[in-house]
């Protein structure tokens, strides 16, 4: 059964259908309604790398829909340290579960797991490769705020070189005709092959080092964390990172409906003063991880989401 390894596994129409399902599932995600669409189904959470939000939101998504979850647990205490191959681990979990969410430090691990498995695999991050379930929740958040995914101006800022989140999102936004601005220090620019790939697919891409000069006509500003260990010395880090910090004072001339997103965890790149502005969207974005994954699991398990969730759902 097919899973979600990269965003190329979904057509634009399928993406929109899943986002529509997610919109209807919002009261279930919030715990206002009980709708056990996945009762009797089991999700296998295989996180070979640390994860907080992704792992917990998969688990919450499954449980909100009446399903259950088994966890690999700490890799240090699993068969992996005894030298078990990914193939063997997947063979085992494939027999225990109906669907698998996975994060792995090696790139290509999710596709490898899908080729080894009978059940659908959801890629929760493979090395510096893809993170399509994050992209789904990002798209959900953008559409929730703007009512559309089409024709928006989106600024992606910070570490664009190593951030798999921004790679997957750029590809997806290109498919919906967004104008993309990549604002980053030279050292952390979006990889050349990704930029040329996006342009080949018709993307309108601008690359700049000037974040603050790019935000006033943006519909979305997507911030990412700049990690100190990427730089040769601390002075260089301090100089670069300083130019990619947002403060409430910087937002006086931005569009009123502009949203600021961040995959979290943040460090200094979004000052706490931004949290109370109407533009702060990152905590809502983190919550949307649950509802987007609920809709995705239903889609992959071919469980239809009722058109009228309110009448189908029960009181908790």
């Amino acid at each position: 059964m097919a899973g979600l390894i990269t965003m190329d596994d979904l057509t634009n129409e399928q993406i929109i259908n899943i986002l529509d399902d997610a919109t209807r599932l919002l009261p279930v995600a919030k715990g206002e309604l009980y709708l056990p669409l996945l009762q009797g189904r089991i999700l296998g959470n295989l996180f070979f790398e640390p994860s907080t939000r992704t792992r917990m939101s998969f688990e919450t998504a499954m449980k909100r829909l009446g399903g259950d979850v088994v966890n690999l647990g700490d890799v240090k205490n699993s068969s992996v340290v005894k030298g078990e191959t990914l193939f063997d681990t997947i063979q085992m979990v494939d027999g225990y579960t109906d669907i698998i969410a996975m994060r792995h430090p090696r790139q290509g691990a999710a596709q490898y797991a899908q080729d080894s498995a009978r059940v659908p695999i959801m890629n929760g991050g493979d090395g510096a490769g893809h993170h399509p379930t994050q992209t789904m929740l990002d798209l959900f958040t953008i559409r929730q705020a703007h009512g559309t995914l089409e024709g928006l101006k989106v600024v992606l800022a910070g570490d664009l070189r190593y951030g798999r989140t921004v790679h997957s999102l750029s590809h997806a936004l290109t498919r919906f005709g967004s104008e993309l601005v990549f604002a980053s220090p030279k050292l952390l620019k979006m990889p050349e092959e990704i930029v040329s790939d996006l342009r080949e697919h018709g993307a309108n891409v601008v690359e700049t080092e000037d974040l603050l000069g790019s935000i006033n006509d943006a519909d979305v500003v997507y911030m990412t964390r700049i990690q100190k260990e990427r730089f040769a010395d601390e002075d260089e880090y301090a100089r670069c990172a300083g130019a990619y910090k947002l403060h409430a004072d910087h937002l006086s001339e931005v569009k009123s409906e502009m949203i600021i997103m961040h995959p979290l965890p943040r460090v200094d790149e979004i000052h706490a003063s931004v949290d109370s502005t109407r533009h702060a969207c990152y905590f809502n974005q983190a919550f949307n991880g649950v509802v987007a994954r609920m809709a995705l699991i239903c889609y992959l398990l071919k469980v239809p989401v009722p058109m009228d969730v309110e009448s189908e759902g029960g009181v908790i």
Partner: protein
Amino acid sequence: MSNEHSMRRVTAIRNGTVIDHIPSGQALRVLEMLGIGGKSSVPVSLVMNVPSKKMGAKDIIKVEDRELTQTELDRLALVAPDAHVAIIRAYSVAEKLTINLGSEVSNVVRCTFSNCITTNHREPLPHRLKVISRDPLHIRCHYCGRPQDLDELIKNVL
């Protein structure tokens, strides 16, 4: 200059393999991909940049006393997908072999990306590369999706 004339630049072989219509300048790459080099004991003749009606210029390799296997043809497909391969027995063409570069190359070479899941030698699934385009040759790993550089790939022959 005729094709026949080009072939006569090196002597005819009694038994072995002739690889003709190799893109000009690629013969050394072909030998490297096939693992035929200084250490192999079979005689090898090589001509480079000879005129060709079809290609403008081409390279030719003659390997004596060795017939290419299917696995070697699959490797050859990556470097010279339009080459012609003839098996020679008793100075005559005994067989013409077809090179086929399809949409995927399986268990011929290993992905060159150091963090690809397939770098774990104990993982049992086949090494798979997808051919995105033939000309220019554009190949990506089926698993990690990384584009593959041919010069690097030659070092990763299975």
